[in-house]
C-alpha cells in the first residue's frame, strides 16, 4: 500500500492478534497490534490513517469505551468492532459511536476483508477531499481583497450593476475584477465558481 494505511488490531488474546496479523499481512495490509486499550491510546497519533479492529471485552478499558475516547479525540479512523458475545445493546452502542461494522467471533474472512476494504476506501476518499480543499484554499489565497469581495457577491447571485453600486465602483471595473478572479480560479462559468466555492 502506497498511501500509508494501517490496520490497528486491539485484542487481549495473543493468538487472535497473531492470527489476524498474519492473515492481514498476507493480504498486503500493514498491521499494528495492541494488547489493550491503554497501550493503543498511549501510542495513538492523530495522523494515523487506516482502521481500527477492536475487541469489546478486554481487561481494563473495554473496546466500546476506547471507541468513544477516539471519537472524543477527534479521530476519524473507521472502527470495526469484533465480539464473541454480541448483543443488541453493544451493537447499538457501537453503531451510535459511528462504528463501520460489527463482526461476531469467530470471524468470517470475507466480511472482515470487506469491512477493512470499505474502511480504507473511506479513508482514501476523505484524503482526496482534503486534498481538493487545500488546492482551493491556495487559489483563493491568490485573490486580491477586491476580487474576493466581487467573488462573494457573484456567488451570492448579484448582478454586476448591483455589485458596482455596493462597492461604489463602475460596472466596468466590476467586470474586470470578475474576469481576473475567474481566470485565477480557473473556472469558466459562474456555475463552476459556485460549485468551487461550496467545496
Amino acid at each position, binding site marked *: 500500500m502506497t498511501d500509508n494505511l494501517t490496520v490497528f488490531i486491539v485484542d*487481549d*488474546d495473543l*493468538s*487472535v492478534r*497473531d*492470527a*489476524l496479523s*498474519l*492473515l492481514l*499481512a*498476507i*493480504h498486503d495490509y500493514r498491521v499494528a497490534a495492541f494488547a489493550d486499550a491503554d497501550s493503543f491510546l498511549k501510542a495513538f497519533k492523530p495522523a494515523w490513517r487506516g482502521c481500527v479492529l477492536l475487541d469489546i*471485552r*478486554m*481487561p481494563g478499558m473495554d473496546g466500546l469505551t476506547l471507541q468513544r475516547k477516539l471519537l472524543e479525540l477527534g479521530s476519524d479512523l473507521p472502527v470495526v468492532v*469484533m465480539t*464473541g*458475545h454480541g448483543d443488541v445493546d453493544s451493537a447499538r452502542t457501537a453503531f451510535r459511536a459511528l462504528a463501520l461494522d460489527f463482526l461476531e*467471533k*469467530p*470471524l468470517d*474472512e470475507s466480511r472482515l476483508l470487506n469491512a477493512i476494504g470499505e474502511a480504507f476506501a473511506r479513508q482514501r476518499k476523505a484524503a482526496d477531499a482534503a486534498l481538493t480543499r487545500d488546492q482551493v484554499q491556495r487559489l483563493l489565497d491568490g485573490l486580491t481583497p477586491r476580487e474576493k469581495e466581487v467573488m462573494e457577491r457573484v456567488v451570492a447571485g448579484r448582478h454586476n450593476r448591483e455589485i458596482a453600486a455596493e462597492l461604489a465602483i463602475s460596472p466596468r471595473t466590476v467586470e474586470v475584477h470578475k474576469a481576473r478572479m475567474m481566470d485565477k480560479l480557473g473556472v469558466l462559468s459562474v456555475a463552476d465558481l459556485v460549485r468551487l466555492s461550496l467545496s
Partner: protein
Amino acid sequence: MPLKYLLHPGFIALYVALDAASFIHPLHGLNITPWSPAPALGLVYLLRQGPIARVGLVAAVLLGEYLVRGMPFPWWKSLGSALILAAGYLVLSEFLKRRLPLTSLLDDRAALLAWMVPVVLGTLINSVLYLTSLHLLGLLPANGWLTGVLQFWVGDAVGITIAMPLFWWLTGERGRFALRSVLLRGETLMYSLLGLVALGIAFGLGGDSGFKLFYILFLPIVWASARQGMAGAIVSATLLQLGVIAAVQMLDFSAVTIAELQMLGVVMALVGFFIGGVVDEQRRTSGELRQTLRLAAAGEMAGALAHELNQPLTALGAYASAYDTLQARGETGVRLDAAINGMRAEAQRAGDVVKRLRDFFRTGATKLESVALRQLIDSSAEPYRLKARQGGIQFIESEVPDIMLLADRLQLEVVLRNLFSNAFDAVAAADTTGKLVSVQAVPLPGARVLICVEDSGCGLSREEAERAFESFHSSKSSGLGLGLVISRAIAETHGGSLWCEVADHGVFKLVLPTQETRTS
C-alpha cells in the same frame, strides 16, 4: 422357572403359618384375634399377582380355617364363614388396586392416605359382614356381636396397617433394597435396643397400673422414622408389634387389654409412617433441588466454556484463511509454517476447553467420596505454585488439618482453582510490592471446615462483593463471570456456602461440612 411354581403354594403356606402364629386369644374359639397379619400378606399377594391370586387367597383362607382352627363347627358353616371373609379381602384388594400404583412405596402423604382410608373402612365393613354372618349361622353368642365386631376390626386393621407396608416393600425391588440398606446400619440396632428398653419400661413399670408409661414406646418409632424415613418406620413398627405380641403372650394379658394395646400399636405405626413419609418427601424434594442447581451450574459452565471456545476458534479460522491464501499463491516458507503451527496450537487450546467441559459433565451425578482436605487443597494449588514463582508472588499454604470431606473431588477442585485463579489475577492487577496469596483451613464447630483464600489485591467493595456472585458480571475479559456463580452452586450442593468479605484485600471464604468421624 421353578420359583414361579413355588410362588402360589409358598404364599398359601406362609399365609397359614401367619394365621397359626397369630391365632392367639381367640374370641369364642373363632377367627377373632387381636392380631391378624395374614390378611396383609393376602392383600399384597392379590395386588401383586393379579386374578390368579384370587384362587390362591380363597385356598389359603380355607386351609387356615381347617388347619388352624380345625373346623370346630359343621363343615358347611365354617366353609361359609371363611368364604365370606375371603370375599371381603377380595373386594378390599380390588378397591386398593385402583388407588395404589404398583410402583408406589407408600412413602408420601398422598399415597399413605389413599392406602390407609380404604384399609380402615374396608376392614370395618368386612368385620360387620363377617360377624353378622357368624351370628346368623349361630356360631356367636347373642350378646357377643358388638365386642366381636370391634375385636375383629381392630385385629384386622392393626394387622394390615402394620404388616402390609412391610410385605409391600419386601415384594418390590426398590423396597427390598431400601430395607436391606436400613437393616445394615448401626443406627437400626440402636433404636431396636431402645425399643426393647421402652417395652420393658412400658410393660414392667407401667403394666400393672393401667399401662401408664405407654408413651415411651413412641420414642424408638419417632427416632427411626425421623432418621430413616418410611423404611425406618416400617422396620421399627414391625419390631414393636412383635415385641408387644411377645410381651402380652408372656404376661398373659386378657384379650380385651390386648385389643386396647393393639389400638395403641396402630396409632404408633401410623405416626411412624406419616413422619417417615414426610421425611422421605422432604428428602426427595431436596434431592430434586440439588439436581436442579447442578443443572443450572452445568448450563452456566457450558455457556462460559462456549465463550472461551470462541477465542481459539477465531484464531483458528484466521490461520486457516491465511493458509488458504498462501496455498493459492503457491507460497511456502515461514508464513505458511506460522499458519499451520498456529492452527495446531489453537486446536489444542480448543481441545483443552472441551476437556474441561467434559470433566465437569463427567461429575454430572454428584459422586460423593471420602476426600482428604489436605490432598484436595494440595492438588488444587499445584498449578499455582509455578505461577507464583514466575510472577514473584508469595504463595502461603498453611498446614491443613487432618480432615475428611464427603465430597465430589473434581467439583471442589473446580471451586478451589477458581478461588486461586481469582486471587492470582487480583494480585497481578494490583501494582503493589509484596504480592501475596494465602490459603488456610480452620475446623469449625458443628462438623464444618472453613477454607479461607486471601490475596494482597485491592479487595472488593460492598457493592462489588454483592455483584461478584451474579451471573455475567465479570471484571475480567476471559469468561462470562460465571466462576463464582458455579463455585457457589457447587458449594451449596455439598451443603456448604461460599462468600467474599468486604475488606481492603481479597478475602474469600468457603465453608464445607466435614465427614462424620468414622469408627474405624
